[in-house]
């Protein structure tokens, strides 16, 4: 049986006439890394602040461990908090920073000493124990902030955009460290971020939020491969998924999207779930890496023209126009393509998503 560290039930929070959190329900299992993601204003930070006890919800229950903490003050909730700005005292040494929370709890001296040494060893901070925290590099300072929070052994650690202000180059290192230490220590984490790539890299599961609601919960790969709605499809993945409006049509058993002046074949897509949608308006979604660029036409291909080539380091982002439709294609490095060149495109078999235009739900995930 999986133990649950945090249970949020039907949480609702309004500010004046604005509904910030709208009937949110989810659980975080013990030892799990769970991320809430969404654009600015989606309610993810308000949800976190309600859990921490910094905001009082209008409705709903918050259970941490076995206890209903909905009406308890922050310090009684057994949660740790790490914010965007590092919560370390720059004038104190790393040791003093780590011992701080334990001193407040009035733990015996040798117990404090033992815990500091144990956590310092686990987080590779031993050699910095006597260094003033303000003198440390960004990545190390964040590690000290983490050490400070986990040393008091909270039931769950709440991270609010901890890596947002970090430089691009150090971010990758810190995302790796965060995930490794979380696994090694077995800590339970609820993490809030606007950065979908970061959430994918560190999480066991992700909840995608939009306008106060959680739209989808799943593992990073589930959410990436099977987004349940247009919003999730667009929010997860970079470059963004191509979304093309048109009418679903069938010709000689093959399905295709009729988008005004362009016909896009949905090569190899099983038609069973789509049958009821033939002749109706839908939105076709294809990830940029699921489109192949060919120099010769083949079965299931369609023609276009390259309008822009961008270097993404190890990859190319190629922008292709087919009359009124623009597609972004992600390709491995290749040198045979030029701007202005006519080419042929093909959607990789089974990689097309089709969304209901009215409900914006993914038709492929509907029960038949």
């Amino acid at each position, binding site marked *: 049986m999986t133990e649950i560290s945090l249970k949020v039930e039907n949480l609702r929070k309004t500010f004046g006439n604005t509904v910030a959190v709208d009937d949110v329900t989810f659980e975080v299992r013990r030892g799990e890394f769970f991320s809430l993601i969404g*654009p*600015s204003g989606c309610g993810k930070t308000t949800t976190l602040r309600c859990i921490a006890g910094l905001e009082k919800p209008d409705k709903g229950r918050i259970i941490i461990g076995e206890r209903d903490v909905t009406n308890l003050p922050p310090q009684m909730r057994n949660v740790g908090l790490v914010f965007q700005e590092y919560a370390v005292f720059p004038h104190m040494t790393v040791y003093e920073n780590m011992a701080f929370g334990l001193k407040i709890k009035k733990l015996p001296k040798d117990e404090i000493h033992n815990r500091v040494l144990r956590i310092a060893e686990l987080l590779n901070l031993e050699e910095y124990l006597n260094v003033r925290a303000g003198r440390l590099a960004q990545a190390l300072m964040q590690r000290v902030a983490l050490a400070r929070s986990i040393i008091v052994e909270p039931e769950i650690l709440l991270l609010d955009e901890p890596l947002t202000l970090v*430089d*691009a*180059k150090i971010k*990758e*290192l810190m*995302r*790796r460290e965060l*995930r*490794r230490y979380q*696994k090694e220590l077995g800590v339970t984490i609820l993490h809030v971020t*606007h*950065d*979908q*790539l*970061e959430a*994918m*890299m*560190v999480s066991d599961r992700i909840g995608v939020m939009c306008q106060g609601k959680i739209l989808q919960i799943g593992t*990073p*790969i589930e959410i*990436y491969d099977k987004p349940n709605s247009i919003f999730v499809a667009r*929010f997860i*993945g*970079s*470059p*963004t998924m191509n979304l093309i409006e048109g009418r679903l049509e069938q010709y000689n058993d093959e399905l295709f999207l009729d988008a005004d002046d362009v016909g896009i074949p949905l090569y190899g897509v099983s038609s069973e779930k789509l049958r009821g949608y033939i002749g109706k308006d839908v939105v076709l979604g294809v*990830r940029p*890496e699921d489109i192949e660029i060919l120099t010769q036409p083949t079965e299931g291909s369609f023609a276009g023209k390259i309008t*822009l080539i*961008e*270097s*993404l*380091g*190890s990859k190319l*982002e190629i*922008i292709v126009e087919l009359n009124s439709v623009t597609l972004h294609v*992600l390709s491995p*490095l290749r040198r045979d393509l030029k701007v202005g060149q006519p080419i042929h495109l093909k959607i990789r078999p089974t990689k097309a998503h089709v969304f209901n235009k009215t409900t914006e739900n993914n038709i492929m995930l509907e029960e038949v």
Partner: protein
Amino acid sequence: MTFLEIRNIVKEFGGKPALKNISFEVSKGELFSISGPPTAGKTTLLKIVSGLLTPDSGKIYLDGNDITETPPSERNIGMLFEIPPVYPNLTGFENIAFPLRVKKLPESEIRKEVLRVAELLGIKHLLDRHPSTYSGGEYQRVGLARALVRNPKVLLLDEPFRNLDAKIQEFMRTWLKKLQKEIGITVIHATHDPLEAMAVGDRVGIMLKGELKQVGRPDEVYLNPMDIEVTEYITIPAVNLFDGVIRIKGGFVEIDVEGVFSLRKSCEAGFEEGEEGEKEVIVGIRPHDLRLDINPRRDWVKTTLALIQPYGSEVLLLLKLNDKYVRAVADKTMMLTEGAEIYINIDPKNIMLFDRKTKRRITI
């Protein structure tokens, strides 16, 4: 053709060098991206180009004229910062009109110019609203409109997207590049993110510790970085570096990588003309270039998979090789579990070699 030339710019702050003899040229209509870590000197350089700072020595030429001594207001250079100076108590229209009002232009002309730029940037709906109602991307676009309204010859962008949500950043990059091509304005763009620079710039300049180390097209710089520092800076996920020794013998080079890999490839030149023998090197291999298999293969090396991190369409792997960690990238469809054995191999064609003493790239 050179439109803007930066020649031998030197700047010190309190005896500390901030810019060490910076020279580069930008063509008319070009988008030039400068990338480097914080404190590399990017902002100092942009301030010198705009006239907000005076260089200790060196010259700036714009359109054939020496503008080194020209005051900022007469340079006709627009600038957009990370946090643009948008006044909260003015509407979008008044914010954009502000620089024109300072110039005391007639009302009808101001109106025409503000509408022209607003149309261009797709922000007409923001003109009557106050900045407090803007999203991050809208705020930045109004700031950009303000910088563009005087029809500047050059536009300087200093970390224009840094404060935005990741998803909006991505959108703004493409938007900026399209807009820049549409209006044909000359731009210098500075960012701490090498991937942003490569995605946006027609050419990129890599700036490290006050030095402009390398300038070129994004793909050129990525494929042929000049030394270890540049390679480490521009490669995300981080490049793997190993100590190695190369030996040249009769048309072949043998590359020993930390006693773990032994590679061999043909080589035309020696280290120098006719030279044979041994050299200590650092071998660089990018995570994307490491070959992986879950089954043992002859001459491949066994590692243990320590960490899997989904990375969009791919997964990032951390592999334990003896007591060292190696980073690799795999396809998402590869069936992987943490703790399992993974076999790795290096294609000699994909490695980069650096002289261990000078840290410079060597080609053989």
